[in-house]
């Protein structure tokens, strides 16, 4: 994590003085963006850098759904299963993903290519059903869109 400190110092310029504690979530996000998850050593480094109690970081990592303490598949498929998406076929599409990839939500394919998660509303109900593929929204899903996505991402890996 230590090589990110110059970047963190830049962020501080727009915060009021004494807001070090506020940097926990942005710093953890940045660390995870780079490593794919937050490692024990990152927590040690961040405790030292921000001067916040270790328990605060542990709680934050536990509380927010986007943080991970261990690596997952290359492509994280987060399928919304809230009201509007379910009303437009989210469960049917989840079954299709299970059929195609051989895994259920919470699992990663043996080749490490895909992880499926069920998630709550992502604020994209007008284009339901939808999912996130890593950081991007994939909207107006149907079986054809899913098949294209799987084919493209699998081909990317094969290269």
């Amino acid at each position, binding site marked *: 994590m230590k090589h990110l400190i110059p970047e963190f110092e830049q962020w501080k310029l727009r915060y009021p003085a004494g807001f070090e504690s506020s940097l926990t979530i942005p710093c953890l996000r940045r660390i995870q963006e780079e490593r794919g998850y937050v490692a024990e050593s990152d927590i040690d480094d961040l405790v030292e850098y921000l001067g916040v109690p270790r328990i605060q970081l542990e709680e934050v990592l536990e509380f927010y759904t986007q943080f991970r303490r261990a690596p997952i598949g290359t492509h994280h498929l987060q399928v919304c299963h809230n009201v509007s998406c379910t009303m437009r076929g989210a469960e049917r599409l989840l079954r299709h993903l299970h059929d195609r990839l051989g895994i259920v939500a919470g699992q990663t394919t043996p080749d490490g290519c895909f992880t499926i998660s069920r998630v709550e*509303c992502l604020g994209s109900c007008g284009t339901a059903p939808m999912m996130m593929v890593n950081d991007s929204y994939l909207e107006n899903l149907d079986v054809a869109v899913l098949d294209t996505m799987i084919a493209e991402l699998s081909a990317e890996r094969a290269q």
Partner: protein
Amino acid sequence: MSGQRVFMDFPITATSHTLADYRARGGYEAIGKALREMQPEQVTKEVATAGVLGHGGAAFPAGRKWGVITLNDGQPHYLCMNADEGEPGTFKDRWLLEHTPHLLLEGMLLGAYALQARHTFVYIRGEFDLAYRRLADALEEAYAAGLFGEQILGTDFACDLVIYRGAGSYVCGEASAMLTSLEGKKGYPRNRPPRLTVAGLYQKPTVVNNVETIANVPYIVKHGSARFREIGTPKSPGTQLLSVSGHINTPGVYEVEYGYPFADFLANECGGMLRGATLKCVIPGGISTKVLTAADIMPITMDHQAFLAAGSQIGSQGMIIVAEGTCMVSLLQVMTRFYHHESCGQCTPCREGMGWLEKISNRIVAGRGAPSDIERLYQISRANDGTTICGLGDAAGYATVGILDKYREEFEYYIANGRSMYDGRVEVAV
């Protein structure tokens, strides 16, 4: 006609979100006017006179919230825009963030000037990607143009803005939880009093406003409160951005004046029901508001008074349109799963109650429900009303009671027969 526009008055192009385009349509004139011609108190007074009601769900008058802040009291004030849009069915703030981010930044400057807040924040939900990038790019453009930082537009006014990304938590959309999160902690809501305008972020006076609420401010400052009040109804002035989804042909975000009839909205903006289905009911303002049957909602107009009279609320303006044939028991199961997942666990009635709402819903849907389960769902819902720090448990209770009150016979049928009165699906069954 859905009426006059405050936000959707420009064509969306490849560059309509940029500073150059925003300026070409009159952007940043309001902050210039305020800094040259108005005292901070006058800005607050104009917003109060305009009568703009908060667009985050509670419809609290924005001007009154601002008016609570005492200027020159020797302590810092903070302004935070709530862009943690997470109420299921709601995606209107995302439209503003993606398509007109500079309008929001100008609104924040006006708010910062009115409240004398040197530091401001936008708390944006962590999953938003394009919305975040558009806002972050706009902020860098604005800094480079001297619209943030020191000596803004050649005056003594100074303001910094931080875009703070959440990390996945529904409850952080609640203002006090948002500020706890902004302090870098897990997002536990806080007891009031003290109110956040007295002791908010790091215990300093803090105003939290919804994205759409802030977005109204440049219009009000530029054109005056009198002109703003010509839009909408006397008690619900202005427009609302409605997010509409579900079993309709053209889901999306639409700007309508308060007072627009629902039946016209369904026929015109929504493009009618999907595949010719019949309207069953509407979850009117995010899933935390009480469901309205077709008979309840078809005759009414869309404003705060009409929705309250019908027994529900405009809420977060996220409408979910439900077709006849949809299983309301299965729908409740989806909703209770959500509330259970999102309960932060701080208060016992919610932590335990949300779990039981989901468990009971699950067992009814699995065909193992008991006749007494209906009364149990009522009991748990009522046990949350007013007994917890924030409104999450209350809201889950309202949603549950709303569905049970209107569709009790579907629950009785499901429990008696071990299967849905329909085919058990919530996907449109036409």
